[in-house]
C-alpha cells in the first residue's frame, strides 16, 4: 500500500471512528441533547473546511467568500424541499435537494470563477469577499411566492408578489425560508463529509491535482510546461464551491428558519472557516476536518471559554502564521532544531 493511500485510509478511518464513538455515546445516553444538536453543525463545518482547504491549500488562492457558496446551496435546496415537501417522499426529495444545492453552488462557483480567477492574491481575496456579500445581499432582497398560478418573484417586498388568496410565500426577503423539513442528521452529515473527503483526496493525488498544485507553486513554470492554468484553477474552484454547496444543504435542512444573515453567511463566517483551515494546516485536508470538529465543539462545550474564544483564535492565527511562514523564524528553527523539523517545513511549502 502506498503512503498516500494509507494516509487517506487513516483520514476516512478517523471520521468513521468519530461517528461510531458519538453513536455509541448517544445510544448509551451519555450525550446531552445540547451536544446532540452540535453534531450536524460539526459535520457541515468540517465539510466546508475541506472545501476551503482545497481552494486555499491546494489551489493556493485565498477565498473569503466561501460562505456565499454555502448560502447558495442552502437556499436553492431549501427552496426545492419546501416546494416539494408534500409531493415527494423524504429520501428522494433530500437526494434531489442535494443535487440541486451542489449544482447551483458549482454553477455559481464556475460563473464567479471566470472573473475572479483572472486575479491573484489580495485582489482575488477581496473579490471573493465582495461576491460573498453580493450573494448574501441579493438573497436578502429576494421574494418568491407560489399560488395556483405558479411562481411569483419580486425584488421589493412581499406585497409586490401579487398573489392569489391561496398563495404561500416561500422566500420572504430578509426573513428567509421558514419551515424547511429537518432532513439532515448526523449519519447523513458524516456520509457527506466522507464523500467530500473522497473527492478531494482523490483529486489531490490525481494528474489533475498535481497540475493544480503546480499552478499554485509557480504558475509561470506550470504554464510553460503546457498546463492549462485557467482550466485547472476553474476546476479546483468549482469543485470547492460545489462542496461548500453540499455543506449548505446540510445546514438548511437542519434549522427551522433559514436567513441570509451575516452570522452564518457573512465574511466573518468565512473567516471563521479560514481559521479552521489555517489551524488544521494549510493544504492538510485531514487537519482541516480535525480542526473544524475540535474548534467547533470546544467553545460550545466550555461555555466559559466562549467569551474569549474569538480572541484566542485570532491570536493563535497570527502566531501560527508568523511561526510557520516568517523567513527569519524558519531560519531560526532550522538552526536550532537542525534536521528534526525539516518535515514540518516541507508540508507547508
Amino acid at each position, binding site marked *: 500500500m502506498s503512503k498516500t493511500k494509507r494516509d487517506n485510509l487513516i483520514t476516512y478511518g478517523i471520521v468513521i471512528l468519530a461517528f461510531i464513538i458519538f453513536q455509541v455515546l448517544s445510544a448509551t445516553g451519555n450525550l446531552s441533547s445540547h451536544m446532540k444538536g452540535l453534531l450536524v453543525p460539526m459535520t457541515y463545518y468540517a465539510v466546508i473546511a475541506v472545501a476551503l482547504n482545497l481552494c*486555499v491549500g491546494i489551489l*493556493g488562492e*485565498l477565498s*473569503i467568500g466561501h460562505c456565499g457558496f454555502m448560502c447558495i446551496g442552502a437556499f436553492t435546496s431549501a427552496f426545492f424541499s419546501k416546494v416539494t415537501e408534500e409531493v415527494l417522499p423524504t429520501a428522494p426529495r433530500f437526494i434531489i435537494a442535494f443535487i440541486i444545492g451542489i449544482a447551483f453552488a458549482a454553477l455559481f462557483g464556475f460563473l464567479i470563477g471566470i*472573473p475572479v480567477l*483572472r*486575479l491573484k*492574491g*489580495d*485582489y482575488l*481575496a*477581496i*473579490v471573493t*469577499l*465582495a*461576491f460573498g*456579500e*453580493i450573494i448574501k*445581499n*441579493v438573497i*436578502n*432582497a429576494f421574494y418568491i411566492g407560489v399560488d395556483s398560478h405558479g411562481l411569483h418573484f419580486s*425584488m*421589493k417586498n412581499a406585497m409586490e408578489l401579487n398573489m392569489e388568496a391561496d398563495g404561500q410565500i416561500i422566500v420572504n*426577503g*430578509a426573513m428567509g425560508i421558514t419551515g424547511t423539513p429537518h432532513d439532515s442528521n448526523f449519519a447523513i452529515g458524516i456520509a457527506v463529509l466522507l464523500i467530500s473527503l473522497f473527492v478531494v483526496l482523490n483529486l489531490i493525488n490525481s494528474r489533475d491535482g498535481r497540475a493544480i498544485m503546480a499552478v499554485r507553486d509557480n504558475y*509561470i513554470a506550470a504554464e510553460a510546461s503546457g498546463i492549462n492554468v485557467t482550466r485547472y484553477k476553474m476546476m479546483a474552484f468549482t469543485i470547492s464551491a460545489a462542496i461548500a454547496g453540499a455543506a449548505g444543504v446540510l445546514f438548511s435542512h437542519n434549522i427551522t428558519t433559514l436567513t441570509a444573515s451575516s452570522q452564518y453567511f457573512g*465574511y466573518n463566517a468565512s*473567516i471563521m472557516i*479560514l481559521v479552521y483551515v*489555517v489551524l488544521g494546516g*494549510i493544504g492538510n485536508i485531514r487537519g482541516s476536518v480535525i480542526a473544524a470538529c475540535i474548534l467547533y465543539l470546544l467553545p460550545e462545550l466550555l461555555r466559559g471559554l466562549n*467569551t*474569549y474564544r*474569538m*480572541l484566542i*483564535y*485570532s*491570536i493563535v*492565527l*497570527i502566531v501560527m*502564521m*508568523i511561526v*510557520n*511562514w*516568517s*523567513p*527569519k*523564524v524558519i531560519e531560526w528553527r532550522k538552526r536550532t532544531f537542525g534536521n528534526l523539523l525539516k518535515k514540518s517545513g516541507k508540508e507547508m*511549502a
Partner: protein
Amino acid sequence: MSFLTYLINGLSLGSIYAIIALGYTMVYGIAKMLNFAHGDFIMVGCYIIFSVSAALSGNPIIGILIAIVLCTLLGITTEFVAYRPLRGAASPLAVLITAIGVSYLLENVALLIFGADIKSFTSVVKWEGITLFDGQLKIQGVTIVTIVVSIVILIVLQLFINKTKQGQAMLAASEDKGAAALMGINVNRTIMLTFAIGSALAAIAGALLCSAYPSLSPYTGAMPGIKAFVAAVLGGIGSIPGAMIGGLVLGIVEILSKTYISSQLSDAIVFGILVIVLLVKPTGILGKKYLEKV
C-alpha cells in the same frame, strides 16, 4: 433639491471613504499588502474618542488628538509585530491571513472591553451647518467639515510625497525596494512611516465617520474599511488622487443607490463596481500598469 441633498451626502460619505482609502493605498503601494485591519483602526480611533470624551466631557479636539497618537502607535506596533516578520515570506497569503487575524483580534478586544451593544457617539462637530435657498437645502456642519478635511489631507499628502525627502523615499520604496535600499533609503523605517500616516488618517476618518453616522460597535470599521479598499482599487491602487476620486465616486454611488434603487442592494452594487473595475481596468482610474517579469 432632494437630489442635491443626496449628492452632498454622497460627497460627505465619499470623503470619509477617501480618507480611509488614502491609508489603504499608501500601505498597499509600499508594503504591497492588503492591511485588512485598517478598517478596525477606525473603530479603535472611535472608541478612544468616545472614552476620552466620556471621561473629560469636554472639548472633543483632545479626544481626536489622543486617538490620532494612539492609532499611530497601534499601526506602528502592528506593522512591527505582525507584518514585518512576514515580509519576504514564501507565500503572499501569509501576511494577508495575518492581517485578517489582526482585524479579528482588534474586533474581539473591543468586544471584550466595550461589549457588543451599540454606543451612540456624540458628534465631534458642534456646528449646525448652513441653510441655503430659503431653507430648502440644509447642509449639516459635519458634512462640510468632512469634505474640507479630506481636501486638506489630500493637498498635504501630495505636498509631503512630492516635496519632502521622506515622501520621495516612499515613492522610491514603492517602485523598487531593493534599489531604494541601495540608494541609502531605510526601507523598514519608510514602511513604518507609511503605516503611521495611514493609521493616523484612520483615526481622523473614524472621528468623521462616527460623527456622521453616530452608532459605534466593534464592527463599525469593518464594512467602511472594505468599501474604502474598493475605492482605492477603483481609483488605482498606489495613487493618492486616485484614492480621492475612487472614494468620492463610491460614496455618491452608495447614497444614490440606497435612495433610488434599494437599501438592501446598495452594498451589492458597491461590490459590483469593484468586480467590474477589476475586470475592465484592473489598474483603476489613475493606476499605473506593471508588467510581470519572469
